[in-house]
């Protein structure tokens, strides 16, 4: 390994007094060489982002501050550099790529002008030369039509294009080090795959060192040369990517690696086709189209078009698609949160399409939903018992009985029955998701609709919640429609997969068949984009 570009030695960063632990980063040492991609992996709260911010001197002082250690970069200690000096380093020598390009870009400024600003501040180039550089950069990151894109505003670009602009800006002054903080987490899988390829290509061409922060082992397998695993501010394991992924040493790393759902598709248990618990026929949903008071006709969005789908009794079907594919709208139509514009929704043979809320009431218990965000899906002012018992009580179960049932359900989802008396804020994200599952089960539904139930959770917790859902479904004989963007998750819990794009289902079949022989071009593209697809543990 050549001499390191960045060397962090025994870095300690203190958190404010009221936090759950005194140090966000506790004695971390690491080094990155030229032309190397170092992945820092960890779950939320592991201190990985705080460490990156410490390198750039961007910690929210005085609450979070460095209390020890050194950060050596190009012959100086960044922790002891003057603010003036740091500004120079941040602009030219180290640059940063953020998670959410829409927030990192100024929405009122054309992207070309934002890139141009970097050259105006840091170089002596004149206007035509700067424009020339901007166009070069934009074609370097493979933006389509690099002559025209500089004159676009951020909102006119797609998420992937915005992230390409961010990368172009990060590369503008040929930095020695790029810090990328979860740069692909907000992107769709296919876009993520393109951005990762681009980052690797550019890094190889420019010889830049990259400090890549992520929570996703698939991404690690895709890009990293070396890996650092962090937990609670400490360094748990470090090593070459292949070794860490294939033969992790630390228990924590082992658990993390094991928690990544494998891409091995699950096989359908029985070949028979029982009567469907849910059947959709020609379902359509169109948003907008209503003219405003003064505006012209509103924009119409055909969110769901002519969808046919069945969920057989006792089976689990994954509805896979990227953001904007209409999968959540479809779910909202099925549970009656949206009214479909056409087609049949048959629950246990009964068509409920177009029913009003009053008409739906007798069918409510048949289908229940597990929501995405464990922090928004439980009312913070209600006790857990009240949250779970609400549905049964409304259906006429006496309160005492409903609460007894709630205790039982909490036991089933792996929580203490005493949790009924506590409030949601006393639980972690994974535990809250378990409470959400108990709430859905309390109605004794035939069909569970799970809308990205694990995408807001840490990897190690994801696996537990998925396994819990799977166990409960099989032991209670439930059917499940599982909405996800993640093919690994779909392969792990579902016997069948339906792939959705632009509101329509493009391919549908048993998971194993789709994985072995994808027919539709888009399905192939999705499968190719799964990060770390070549890596199997």
């Amino acid at each position: 390994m050549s001499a390191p570009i960045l060397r962090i030695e025994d870095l300690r960063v203190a958190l404010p007094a009221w936090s759950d632990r005194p140090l966000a980063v506790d004695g971390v040492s690491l080094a990155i060489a030229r032309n190397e991609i170092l992945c820092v992996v960890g779950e939320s709260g592991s201190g990985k982002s705080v460490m990156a911010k410490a390198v750039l001197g961007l910690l929210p002082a005085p609450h979070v501050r460095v209390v020890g250690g050194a950060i050596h970069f190009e012959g100086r200690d960044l922790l002891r550099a003057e603010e003036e000096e740091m500004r120079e380093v941040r602009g030219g020598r180290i640059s940063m790529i953020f998670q959410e390009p829409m927030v990192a870009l100024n929405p009122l400024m054309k992207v070309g002008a934002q890139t141009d600003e970097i050259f105006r501040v840091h170089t002596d180039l004149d206007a035509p030369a700067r424009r020339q550089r901007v166009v070069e950069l934009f074609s370097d990151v493979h933006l389509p039509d690099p002559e025209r894109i500089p004159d676009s505003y951020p909102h006119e670009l797609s998420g992937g294009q915005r992230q390409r602009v961010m990368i172009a800006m990060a590369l503008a002054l040929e930095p020695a080090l790029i810090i990328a903080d979860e740069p692909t987490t907000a992107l769709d899988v296919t876009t993520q795959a393109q951005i990762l390829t681009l980052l690797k290509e550019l890094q190889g061409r420019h010889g830049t060192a990259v400090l890549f922060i992520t929570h996703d082992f698939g991404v690690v397998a895709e890009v990293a040369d070396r890996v650092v695993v962090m937990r609670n501010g400490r360094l748990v394991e470090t090593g070459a990517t292949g070794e860490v992924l294939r033969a992790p040493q630390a228990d924590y790393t082992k658990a993390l690696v094991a928690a990544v759902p494998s891409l091995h598709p699950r096989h359908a248990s029985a070949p028979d086709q029982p009567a469907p618990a849910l059947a959709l026929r020609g379902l359509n949903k169109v948003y907008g189209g209503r003219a405003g008071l003064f505006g012209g006709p509103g924009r119409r969005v055909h969110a769901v078009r002519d969808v046919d789908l069945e969920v057989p009794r006792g089976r689990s079907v994954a509805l896979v698609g990227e953001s904007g594919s209409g999968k959540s709208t479809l779910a909202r139509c099925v549970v009656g949160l949206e009214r479909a514009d056409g087609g049949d929704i048959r629950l246990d043979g009964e068509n409920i399409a177009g029913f009003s809320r009053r008409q739906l009431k007798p069918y409510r218990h048949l289908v229940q939903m597990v929501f995405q965000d464990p922090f928004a899906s439980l009312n913070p002012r209600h006790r857990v018992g009240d949250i779970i018992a609400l549905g049964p009580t409304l259906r006429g179960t006496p309160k005492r009985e409903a609460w007894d049932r709630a205790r039982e359900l909490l036991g089933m989802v792996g929580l203490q029955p005493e949790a009924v008396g506590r409030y949601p804020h006393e639980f972690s994200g994974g535990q809250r998701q378990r409470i959400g599952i108990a709430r859905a089960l309390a109605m004794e539904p035939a069909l569970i609709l799970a809308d990205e139930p694990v995408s807001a959770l840490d990897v190690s917790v994801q696996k537990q919640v998925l396994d819990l859902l799977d166990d409960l479904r099989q032991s209670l004989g439930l059917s499940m429609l599982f909405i996800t963007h993640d093919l690994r998750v779909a392969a792990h819990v579902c016997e069948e997969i339906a792939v959705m794009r632009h509101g329509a289902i493009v391919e549908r079949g048993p998971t194993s068949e789709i994985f072995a022989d994808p027919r539709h071009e888009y399905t192939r593209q999705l499968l190719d984009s799964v990060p770390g697809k070549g890596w199997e543990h």
Partner: protein
Amino acid sequence: MNTFRQRFFGNPRVIGGLAWLGLVIMVAIAAPLLSPHHPFEIVAQPFLIPSVEHPFGTDSLGRSIWAGLVHGARTTLVIAILATLASVAFGTLVGALAGYFGGWVDDGLMRLTEFFQTIPSFIFAIVLVAILTPSATSLIVAIAVVSWPPIARVVRGEVLSVKAREYVQAAVLVGQEDMAILFRQVLPNTLSPLIVTGSLLVATAILVESALSFLGLGAPNLMSWGFMVGAGRSFLRDAWWLVTIPGVAILLTVLSINLVGEGLNDALNPRLSDL
């Protein structure tokens, strides 16, 4: 993260505000004990400078300023608090219905709110009191009528954001009725901005009440701070204490309420003040 209690009571400005407010409230409750004289009763010769016998002096008719101050605290506080409660109740109802049901309900209620907001509030209050004839009740009505629109807008905004949360959808899915969802799931989660706005509204209500009384539109047989300032203003050069003492009382009370209100805001939304 420290608790709400620590954040609220650990703030010295809150303690200062609470101390003065506590004093005013106690004085208002104990008014008949602290000053056996009726505030309109003539107790000595006029224009006595503050002394041991008459701690705050006497006014142009020989009435005790101390008696006026303690009984005025009662009037001012009762009117301000009742007016605030009325406007918070009405504003919350309007805002909650508009935000929750949306569509034409929202359009109708919000146009009504804007109609009230377009009329300059103090002039509107004067007109209302003049039409209703001055009395404690008409003061309360007038203050409530001019101060509910901001409450309605705050509540509407909060309801709009809370009703999109997933626990509200979950309640719909288990079959809870709209009104139950609104009152059990949504409104309890809009309380913190409501408490802050409401507490600051008390200060505004005191100012409006004082201003109306100053103009002679106050309750005719009740002593109030604004009335005292109004009655003493012609003698400002000869007897400064007639205006100054009740004026300072108004100033300190309004300031204290604002300090406590801001303290509440900081304690309820710790992130805003912290980072």
